[in-house]
Every structure is written in C-alpha cells, then in structure tokens.
C-alpha cells in the first residue's frame, strides 16, 4: 500500500486588493510514496515544496484534488495521530522548556499519560538535548530548535514523517546526525517524506526523489534512474603541454597545469580520444569516469536563471 497518495492536488491563491487575481502555487500534482521509503521532494526556493507539505498537513486547503496518507483522508484525526511533521525553520512556544513542550505535544498526540515521561526523555536523548531539557526554548540556538523540531516530530512514534528542510540551520555534525536519524527511521520501517534544496542530502539518503519547479512536477524516480538519463563523461589526464589536433574536435573542456593536461570527453568519444593520444605517442596518466550527479539532472530540468539562487549542493 502507498503511504502517501497525492491525487491532483493543486493550490491557487487570490492576490491583490483591488484587482484580485489568481496566483498558482501548485499545479495538479500526482505522486505516490511507498511505505518504508525515504522520499526527497526537491526544488529551488518558491517551487511549491512547502505548499505541498502544508496541503498534506491540512494547514491550507486544496483548490482541487485530494490526498490520502496511510489510506486515510488528510483531514482525518486518526491519520494525524500517525504522522509527524517538522515545519521549515520551526518556532515553538519559547516560554516553555524543552521538556514541557514535548509533554504538551505528547498530550495533543494522544500519548498515554503513563508513557509520556519516558517517551519525552527518550526522544530528548535521541536528539542530544537531555542536558538542556529544563531550559526555556527562548534560550535555544537555531540548531537546538531544529533538534526540538525533530524531537516533536518523532515523539509519538509516527508511521509517516514529513520534514520540511530538516537540515536547515544545522552545522555539519547536526546534518550528519539528521541523516543518520532518517536512515534509522527507514530501518524501523517508517516512511520519510522530506523537502530540501540541498541536493547532496537527497542524493545520499533518498530511495526516490521528485523534482518540482514553479509549482509543477518536473520528474520523479529513483536517484540512479534519474541520473542515468544524463549522458556520462570521463576525465582523461596525460603528460604534455598541448592538445593533439585530432583530440580538439572531441573535447571543449581542457585545462592545463604545469606539464599535465586534463580533458573531459563524452563517454561515447572515450575510445576515439584514447586512440588519438596513442597515435601521438602520449602517455596517459589516468582515465576517470565522472559521476553523474543528481545536481546535473536537477539543473537540466530547471532553467539556468532560476536555479542559481535556489540550489546548493
């Protein structure tokens, strides 16, 4: 069974005061996420990732379409007891301590009163906030608040987790810990749906990804499948001070460092390039396949002008 089924979910907002007009935040989106998957929802800033998550959480209402999570409608309270949500740049009641906040969320999630204390302690230990459990959240750093956000999302042992930019605000160690946590959740059979514009995170974690841009789904599939559609390249390095004329037609990307030349050629031209170098009696130092990254696929799917601001790897 699919953990998440999105059936033509779309969102238009009315903007303007006098001259009202419709602004499309999300075009009809069809997507399915299987149970136990880590699913990455990728796109530059303003692509529609957060709108999609808000629609799934029932925070905004769809203009058309519907969605089901664990086979239940998105406004079904029984379903909400089985999901966890981390909003982007979370902000919590800062007059509460971390312990009080999690107790409150445990109450709202319907966690049994006898188990609340234990669950709160466990989850605080899991995100490394045991020592500051009695500190008011107003004294927390951005990274610590992100950890509290993760703690409240996993507190009630939900089956499906939605993380909106979970690595945001975290230092490299924190990012690593979140990646480890997501992998651990997957091992426990949980489904994780997370949005990000940090492609390396998606590449290292996700079973499948979807790419969204300007509110429109541009591609969806396993990372390996998506990247295989991008033509591979190899880097050839040899000792010389110039490029043979026969090779110049095969590459436009040559760099010189001291007595070494580095040229990038398409996989299809690899043999021809090697033959050209051998004919000239040049000794080849190395031939390295260049890994096709999700970033390349991502950049190809989006217009260059619109990726510059939003994409980091």
């Amino acid at each position, binding site marked *: 069974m699919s953990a998440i089924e999105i059936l033509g979910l779309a969102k238009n907002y009315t903007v303007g005061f006098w001259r009202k007009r419709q602004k499309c935040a999300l075009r009809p989106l069809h997507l399915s996420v299987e149970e136990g998957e880590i699913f990455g929802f990728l796109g530059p800033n303003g692509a529609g990732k957060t709108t999609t998550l*808000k629609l799934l959480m029932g925070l905004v209402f769809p203009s058309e379409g519907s969605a089901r999570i664990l086979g239940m409608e998105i406004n079904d309270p029984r379903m909400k*007891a089985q999901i966890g949500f981390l909003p982007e740049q979370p*902000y919590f009641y800062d007059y509460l301590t971390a312990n009080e906040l999690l107790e409150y969320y445990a109450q709202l999630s319907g966690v049994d009163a006898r188990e609340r204390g234990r669950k709160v302690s466990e989850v605080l230990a899991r995100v490394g906030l045991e020592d500051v459990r009695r500190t008011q959240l107003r004294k927390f750093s951005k990274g610590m608040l992100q950890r509290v956000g993760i703690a409240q999302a996993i507190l009630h042992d939900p089956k499906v987790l939605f993380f909106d930019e979970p690595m945001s605000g975290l230092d490299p160690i924190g990012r690593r810990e979140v990646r480890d946590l997501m992998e651990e959740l997957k091992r426990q059979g949980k489904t994780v749906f997370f949005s990000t514009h940090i492609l390396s995170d998606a590449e290292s974690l996700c079973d499948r990804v979807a790419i969204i841009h300007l509110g429109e789904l541009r591609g969806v599939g396993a990372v390996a499948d998506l990247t295989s559609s991008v033509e591979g390249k190899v880097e050839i390095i040899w000792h010389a001070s110039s490029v043979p004329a026969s090779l110049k037609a095969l590459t436009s990307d040559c760099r010189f460092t001291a007595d070494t030349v580095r040229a990038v050629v398409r996989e299809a031209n690899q043999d021809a390039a090697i033959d050209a170098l051998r004919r000239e009696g040049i000794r080849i130092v190395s031939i390295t396949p260049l890994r096709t990254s999700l970033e390349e696929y991502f950049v190809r799917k989006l217009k260059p002008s619109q990726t510059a601001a939003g994409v980091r790897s």
Partner: protein
Amino acid sequence: MNSRIVYIASNTFREAIRDHVLYNLIAFALLMSGAAILVGQISLGIERLVVVNLGLAAVSLFGVVIAIFIGIGLVSKEIEKRTLYTVLSRPVERWQFIVGKFLGLAGTLVVNTAFMAVGVFAALLYVTRAFERTDVWILVALYLIILQFLMITAIALLFSSFSTPLLSAVFAFSLFVVGSFAEDLRGFAAMARGISRWLAIGVAYLVPNFSSLNVITSVAHQQPVTGQFILSDSLYALVYTAMTLCGAVLIFEHRNLK
C-alpha cells in the same frame, strides 16, 4: 470535556502567567492601597461608595485591557510564529484549538479577577472597618464583570481569527466602547424614524450590551440586583459569547494558514 481542549487551555493559561500578565495585580494593589488611604482622609461618609466604585471600575478596566491585548494575539500570534503548524498537524481539530484558547484566557481572567476581588474587599475593610450584608452585591458585580470579560475575549478571538493584531485591537476596543453605550443606542433607536430607526435598532442589538452588565454604580449605592436580572444577563452574555465563538470557529475552519 474534550481532553485536547483542556491541554490547549492549560497551555494558554501557562503562557499568560509566564508572560507576566499577573504583574498587573501589583499595579492594582498599589491603586487600591493608595485609594483606601486617600479615601479615608478626604471623603467623609462616602468612603464605601468611593472604594467600591473605584475598585470595581479598576477590576473591569484591568480585565478588559488584558482580555483585548492577549485575546487579539491568541490566534494571529500562533499563525505569525508558525507555532500553530505543529499543533494542527496533530489530531487536533481547529474548533478545539479556538475553544481551548478561549478557555485558557477566560481562566486567566477569572484567576486575575479573584485576586483583584480580594484587593477590593481588603480596601473596603480598611476604610469601613466592618463588612455589611449588602457587600455581597459586590460579588454579583464581579460576576457580571467576568461575564463581560468572556464576551470581550470571544470578540477579540473572533477578530484575531482573520485580522492582524493591530486591527483586532482597534476593532475589539471600539466594540467595547460602543457596547458600553448600548443602552443609549437602544434609546436612540426607539426615538429615531424611518430607515435610521431600523439601522439603529440593528446596530444596537448587534453590538454587545456591556452597559446592561455594568451594575457597579447600583452596587456602590448598596442597591440590590434581582435574581431575574442576573439570570437574564447571564443567559445573554453566554449566548453572545457562544455565538461569537462560533463565528471565530467558522472563519478559522476555512482559513488558509499561509
């Protein structure tokens, strides 16, 4: 009662307490102490009248200010700070959130009023040296003041469910002022003619009738308040509060939390 409503109400109460709302009691205590000492010296024979009038008016004013200035942020602040996202993504219905918030602030106001009531009686005892039987009507006046707080809290919450805190404050305070003259408005409606008559009647019955719930002057003059009056005003305040809350729920149920 629904347990999630109780949890939200408790958290709202805790928020108000930690936001130092009860600090107003210090100002109130200073006011009552000063009034009691001054009244004893300058108002011979009418100490009781002055202390009761001043005390109950201060209770009402302090409570209305708290109800409006906390009430207007009950929903809008949660949206602005996005604390609502992690609440509504749990098995919490939107109406439960609104009702919980209302009860939390109402509870805060009741506790605050209870402390202030102690202050009023203490000041009264200081200037009169002994309580009289008619002083029990002060409790009735306090009860009716609490009913006003419930209405104004619901009104602030209604505006908070669709407007900014600043506009909500302006709307709620304006409605409180107009509502305080609701009886005069009804009198004007009775005298008016033609379309202005119907317009005035409509407005007079739509705005909350706070003037009817204000018995401070009669109580200060030791005049009794009838049981029928208390009953009808209680019914009116509770129905008005419930309908205002329903309006807030209806708006909030359809609001996109952008």
